[in-house]
């Protein structure tokens, strides 16, 4: 059994203009020592799904799922108190904005030490020793001095390293990294990703890497799950995904990468935006932006089998050719 298993997770937000489904029947699993990448544009429900697992959503959110199991425990039926014993200890999370994710009023040492005292009951001296060890682990020079510093005295990259140190404090089994490099500049991005992958390997943790950057996916992940407007549209291992994307959305995302552009000139882009609360199409959510969409896509699309990457599409692509498509297939064959 996988370390984390989520089946048909749905998160609905109450808003002044009616309910909004931010996550729509998403299934997800991540095993010990595995890196799963969740990819999608802004608003595709990547972070919300993980915040639901952590129990960090505001009260306006309603979370339902067929199953949500972590390490053999049912996360759905846990009380808030029991959940707090798991999060921060066995599951920990790092966030997109390291600079604002650290509390400006407390020192680095205090913020790392907090989880150590809460979950492991360490004394002052023990906490200090472990904090120094953690800061060394994430590659912060002169860790003794950093302990007494405040977040505003750290750079963005340093802050993210401190966040990682905090997340690793209790040797978690699962680390969720929510766009950990988005706010950092490119050279620091690579360093942080290397660090995360190295720590994941050394500690045998599961790592869920949420990102919208296909480059990050290619460099780090083993398995990739693509989300669009709150739905999982495809899941494949990383090689397969880059070699032969089955969902038109994945294909479009990949062809927008500069490295993969087939010819010189303008990069291809996906017209339109992710549907919001008011303009959700009735059938396939990607249909309005899809070059292969037909009238049949106005009703709910079919979930393909694992060989086709569980693609949520009526005309899954194989080698760039939509299967069973009335017009386009004929066109290509001709």
């Amino acid at each position, binding site marked *: 059994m996988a370390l984390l298993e989520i089946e048909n997770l749905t998160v609905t937000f109450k808003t002044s203009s009616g309910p909004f489904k931010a996550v729509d029947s998403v299934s997800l699993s991540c095993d010990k020592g595995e890196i799963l990448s969740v990819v999608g544009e802004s608003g595709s429900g990547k972070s919300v799904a993980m915040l639901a697992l*952590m129990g*960090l959503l505001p009260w306006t959110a309603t979370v339902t799922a067929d199953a949500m199991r972590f390490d053999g425990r049912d996360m759905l039926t846990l009380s808030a*108190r029991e*959940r*707090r*014993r*798991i*999060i*921060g*200890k066995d599951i*920990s*999370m790092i*966030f997109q*904005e390291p600079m*604002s*994710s*650290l*509390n*400006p*009023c*407390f020192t680095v040492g205090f913020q790392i030490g*907090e*989880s150590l005292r*809460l*979950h492991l009951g360490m004394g002052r001296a023990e906490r200090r020793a472990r904090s120094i060890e953690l800061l060394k682990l994430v590659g912060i020079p002169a860790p003794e001095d950093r302990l007494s510093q*405040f977040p*505003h005295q750290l750079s963005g990259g340093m802050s993210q390293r401190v*966040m990682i140190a*905090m997340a690793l404090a209790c040797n978690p089994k699962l680390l969720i990294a929510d766009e950990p490099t988005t706010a950092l500049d490119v050279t620091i991005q690579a360093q942080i990703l290397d660090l995360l992958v190295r720590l994941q390997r050394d500690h045998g943790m599961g790592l869920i890497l949420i990102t919208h950057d296909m480059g990050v996916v290619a460099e780090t992940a083993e398995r990739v799950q693509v989300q669009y407007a709150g739905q999982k549209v495809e899941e494949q291992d990383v090689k397969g995904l880059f070699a032969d994307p089955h969902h038109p959305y994945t294909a479009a995302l990949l062809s927008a990468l500069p490295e993969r552009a087939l010819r010189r000139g303008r990069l291809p882009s996906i017209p339109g935006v992710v549907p919001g609360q008011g303009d959700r199409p009735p059938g396939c959510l990607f249909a309005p932006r899809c070059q292969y969409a037909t009238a049949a896509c106005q009703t709910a699309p079919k979930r393909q089998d694992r060989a086709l990457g569980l693609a949520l599409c009526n005309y899954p692509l194989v080698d760039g050719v939509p299967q069973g498509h009335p017009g386009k297939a004929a066109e290509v064959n001709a």
Partner: protein
Amino acid sequence: MIRFLLYRLALLVPTFIGVSIVAFAFIRMLPGDPILLLAGERGMTEERYQQLQHLYGFDQSIFVQYFNYVADLLSGDFGTSIVTKRPVLEEFFTLFPATLELSLCAIIVATAIGIPAGVFAAVKRGSWLDQSIMGVALVGYSMPIFWWGLLLIIFFSGMLQWTPVSGRISLIYFFPQVTGFMLIDSLLSGQKGAFTSAASHLILPTIVLATIPLAVIARQTRSAMLEVLGEDYVRTARSKGLPPMRVIGLHALRNALIPVVTTIGLQVGVLLAGAILTETIFSWPGIGKWMVDSVGKRDYSVVQGGLLLIAAIIMIVNLLVDVLYGLINPRIRR
């Protein structure tokens, strides 16, 4: 920090000059003549009147009077009361402890109730609790002090007979002034019942004087908390599995207090202004009542000196608040 302090101290000079002009001019703009008021209904001869005018220097031009006044001020002489013939500074320091005691009690009550109320309102945002707290705060803020004081006297002193109507302590107790604070002096005197009497005299004036600062502090705390509760670092704290009490009471409140401390400092001005009304209603022998009585008697030197001293206190407190602000906000500290 030293530079900042010197700069702020230098700013006191023009403020002081301004206050001295305003204080000097305003009391002279009021119709009424201190010497005639002093003489009372019997009146006095023209000759005696001229003699007294000359004695107090009122026969000189207004500019000469002002420069004489400032010259005296610079040598530390705040003038002598026309009515009591005692030095203004001496009267001030005799009466000031009474005002200070009342103001301190009021600000302690306002802070001790206002901050928790604001925190609760913010945490339970939109609930009936939030709406009732903010409703009461709005009423408290809008309540005319003198009317509110009279209502309380009618109800608690008149109808219920729970509290005394006026004064600082029952007349049956007498003991020497040590600190000037009736609560402390009554304890030091060792007389039975003295402390209870002093405390019961304090209750109503404290409530009246605390009402507006309490409302302001509660509203400011609520808005600061609402802002802080949405910050990334609060999510980080929750993701560590910390109990809600610690997330709200430590991680969020510590940041929310930064603007609240400034507000509390600014309330000192409101308190001293409020003290004038409160002390008059409750015959509290402090500087507020002293000022009102002196205006009534056109005691020029007392009004001038008193205003200047009150202004000085407000300026010093504001300066202290600025220093304190730097101490509680690590981003300013170094």
